[in-house]
């Protein structure tokens, strides 16, 4: 079961992936479109996610907000984040479904050291493969959206799978299926962008001049996109990154540093080897020993 067909993968963590087999049609890119302007924050998506994925999120306490659980966990792959946005006399209750964005250029995958623990299918879904996960937490560092969580019990990383098991049989992800108001749409990425365009026209007609699509190019676009009423200020929505990108630190760490480091080590080794064969060993001669005897004896004499 754990054996993946490499042909279906576009990327595989800590490994190279051969291109899809010739003659096999490329899977069409899929996307989930979350229309924040239609979201009522009912948490049906959360419930459907818990149920479909058989997640056992412990029952918590209320902290005086509607955010429950208060953050993503290993057993809550999506949570609603409620923001009360007051401007002048007007109030808006911005409710954003948080969860994996399925970046086209996934930082988690880039950071992951375990071969095949994170995969990206040719349709764009980024999935975690538990049996390959070593629980190092590098994916957390790689993620620009602070999504993956490491389990304290299994020491594996977890996040939304975009219901890859449902998508593979032609079903929409559980959250999108459940969403009562169609705030969550699922389809091909092209269709979703087109649908978002219509929604944005509607929102602009209702006075949201800055309505727009959130499909950040800093991570190559995402396979989970938002329609935002205020696309000019994504951070209004419970800190959605205005311009997400894989951290330059992660870029250095998982980019130039890897070859440079190996090169440096190789260079150091080679230098020693060359030095040895050109200069030879630094040996102690009989003369040196004699001198030592002399010194010791001289000392004795003194």
């Amino acid at each position, binding site marked *: 079961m754990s054996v993946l067909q490499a042909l279906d993968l576009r990327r595989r963590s800590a490994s190279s992936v051969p291109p899809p087999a010739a003659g096999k049609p490329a899977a069409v890119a899929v996307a989930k479109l979350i229309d924040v*302007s*239609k*979201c*009522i*924050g*009912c*948490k*049906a998506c*959360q*419930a459907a996610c*818990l*149920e479909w994925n058989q997640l056992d*999120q*412990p*029952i*918590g*306490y*209320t*902290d*005086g*907000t*509607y955010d*429950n*659980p208060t953050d993503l966990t290993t057993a*809550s792959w999506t949570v609603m984040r409620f923001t*009360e946005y*007051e401007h002048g006399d007007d*109030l*808006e*209750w911005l*409710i954003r479904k948080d969860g994996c964005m399925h970046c086209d250029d996934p930082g988690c995958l880039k950071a992951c050291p375990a071969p095949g623990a994170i995969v990206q299918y040719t349709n764009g879904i980024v999935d975690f493969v538990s049996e390959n996960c070593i629980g190092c937490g590098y994916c957390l560092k790689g993620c620009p959206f602070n999504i993956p969580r490491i389990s304290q019990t299994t020491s594996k990383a977890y996040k939304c799978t975009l219901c890859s098991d449902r998508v593979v049989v032609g079903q929409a992800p559980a959250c999108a299926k459940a969403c*009562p*108001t*169609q*705030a969550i749409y699922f389809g091909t990425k092209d269709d979703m962008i087109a649908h978002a365009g219509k*929604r944005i026209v*509607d929102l602009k*007609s*209702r006075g949201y001049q800055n309505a727009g699509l959130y499909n950040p190019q800093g991570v190559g676009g995402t396979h989970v996109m938002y329609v935002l009423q205020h696309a000019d200020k994504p951070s209004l929505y419970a800190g959605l990154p205005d311009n997400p990108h894989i951290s330059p630190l992660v870029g250095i760490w998982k980019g130039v540093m890897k070859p440079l480091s190996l090169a440096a080590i190789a260079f150091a080794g080679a230098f020693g080897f060359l030095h040895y064969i050109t200069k030879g060993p630094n040996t102690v001669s009989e003369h040196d020993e004699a001198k030592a005897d002399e010194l010791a004896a001289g000392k004795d004499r003194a």
Partner: protein
Amino acid sequence: MTNSWNDIKNADVVLIMGGNAAEAHPCGFKWVTEAKANNGAKLIVVDPRFTRSAAVSDLYAPIRPGTDIAFLSGVMRYLLGNGKIHQEYVKAFTNASYIVREGFKFEDGLFAGYDASKKSYADRSTWDYEFDDQGMAKVDDTLQHPRCAINLLKAHVARYTPEMVERICGTPKDKFLKVCELMATTANGERSMTSLYALGWTQHTTGAQNIRSMAMIQLLLGNMGIPGGGVNALRGHSNVQGITDFALLSTSTPGYLVLPTEKETTFADYMKSRAFKPIRPGQTSFWQNYRKFFVSQQKSLFGAAATKDNDWAYDYLPKFDTAYDVLKMVDMMAGGQMNGLFCQGLNILMAAPNKAKVQAGLAKLKWMVIIDPLETETAHFWENHGEFHNADPKAIQTEVFQLPTTAYAEDEGSFTNSSRVIQWHWKAVDGPGESRSDIQIIADLHSRLRALYTKEGGAFPDPIVNTTWAYAKPAHPEPVELLKEINGYALEDLPNPADPTKVMLKAGQLLPGFAVMRDDGKTSGACWIYTGVYTEAGNMAMRRDASDPTGLGIHPNWGYSWPANRRLLYNRASADPAGKAWSERKKYITWNGSRWVGGDVPDYAPTMAPDKSVGPFIMNQEGTARLFARGAMPDGPFPEHYEPMDAYIANPLHPKVTTNPAVRVFAADAKSFGTPDKFPIVATSYRLAEHFHYWTKNVHDNAVLQPEMFVEMGERLAKAKGIQNGDWVEVSSQRGMIKAKASVSKRFRPIMVDGKPCDVIGLPIHFGFIGLTRKSYPLNTLTPPVGDASVNTPEYKAFLVDVKKTTPPASSPAVA
């Protein structure tokens, strides 16, 4: 609902007031988002707090809890004063032109006929029309007569100026006028507005009048019977509609027939007041068949024991002196007048107001039987749960049974949804342990009682031993058998009315519709509005053809909608008096010269020509809808604003009559109401999207999504009381005290009432001391034991409290 869930998508304006559809009915609310996305609809939300519905609204207006009538009357004043009514519709389909009797008046907060000693309108005779010698109501089609209903209405609502609305409701004038303007855009046949409400309107001492106000607005706008229009009650439980249809109610019998009162000593007496008498020429009504419905029902219930000679077993029915509704029952229990109680899936300790009174009442019972799939607070009322529920088991002598039932996918049968659509569901698995279906349990109970009465005799055994019980397995009737019995059979061969030599239905065949019911005992049928649900063609509730030929969301072959599979009530009104659609956009049922055609079942005989002037509102004797309610409501033919019983201010309109004068208050509850000097904060209660009533606190995932009781309040109040988000607070009312965690929010803003800020807090109803959620004080500890003047729905939505910071409950962890 007069319209259907799917029909909401046809609306151009959606008003959510007296409810919070997004929160309580998310999947129904879907059709609001559809209307917005595909029909360009605008959503108005009027609510004390900024709700989940408000989050996706185009226009939100705040309102103080319990002041809806003032708001809606203000809307009526705006519409009438600015000519924003659908003139032709109002003239044709309402009683606007009917002349009201002289002597009717409204003065100082009281309508004519009030008897202060009885605290009721003992004499409602002036609340009626003038009649001519034929017994027909007098009308003035020119609407000039000063006592035309519409002119009286204009005068009645004249006091509700935008300034007065702002003073009472706290709704800023500009917001109020924006709401009015948007609603007024539908005062034509081109556009329509739907009204979605729920317990936010019903759970007030003026509950029925709240809804009436909205119905009147929809009539003025011409939005009744129109696609995307209507007054739509979004109902609560999965089969609350069906159970109400089947009259699990004190004073009704199935199909909204009325149980005899003790004044109706004989069947003839009973029928005298039920017989339909038209008061407009040519008007027809369902009710002209009342006798057929009643006799067929008695035949279903008592079979051969119901004969013409014994007045169809009229005496088998109990005769009532007064209504024994939930508040009355609790009052009787608390007064020691009850010995036994059955709770079939109803958690009365949580559900009735003033928990202390309910608890005392349960403790006075000799025995109680809980029939439920879940553990309930009621079943454990005798158990001590510390400060959440203090009880002394040793002192409580009530014998309690818990009978486990199947639920959900563990049994089969039909449910009737909020828009009257009856759908069948199938069984998938067995219930847990030894659980049994409700049908089995009731059948078992009846069989044992019947056996005991047959064997031993006892008090009036006749109805018990003569109840029809012709099921293949008497201890376990099949749902299909029951649905057939409900539909009704021909008990003897029925001749074809067109050709009496031929047989229309053979004995034993299922009735095709209520039109063939008879009052001579030859047909049975337990609930006339359901007749047609199971015919010789099969079980209509099982139909699953989702096609929608008109695209209007009618789905005529999906399940079965009572009555007669009609999906949109009063649909005759979608056409003008000549039978032409008001507009192409709202075309629904039209007259094609020989019959009514369209995607739905017309209100009356499809061949009844428009020139016969039969009104669409066939439940009324006049065939028109009532702007003036006549004597139908116990608290006035027009709605009037009264303060909730926990009155926040003296009524600015008539300070001497602050609260609804026709409300029933039990002697024991005389001191149960709070005053603003001690309880200066207005509280309202509601449901959360994450929970269903008191059930889902037993469901793990729902407990995850909302784990604990909280009290929502605005930043102003929190600051004044030194309360932070997540702090424990004590909320107290005249009835009791609870503790809960504070949720401080910008969504609660003080409402300016009479120029002064009024703080409102909100309390979800779901949490209790049983369940997977954190233990909590039941909210009904706080609520007042009083109900609506018409139907006694408890006043859960507006009451007075005080709030202060406190310490965590003893048995709750201090740190979250």
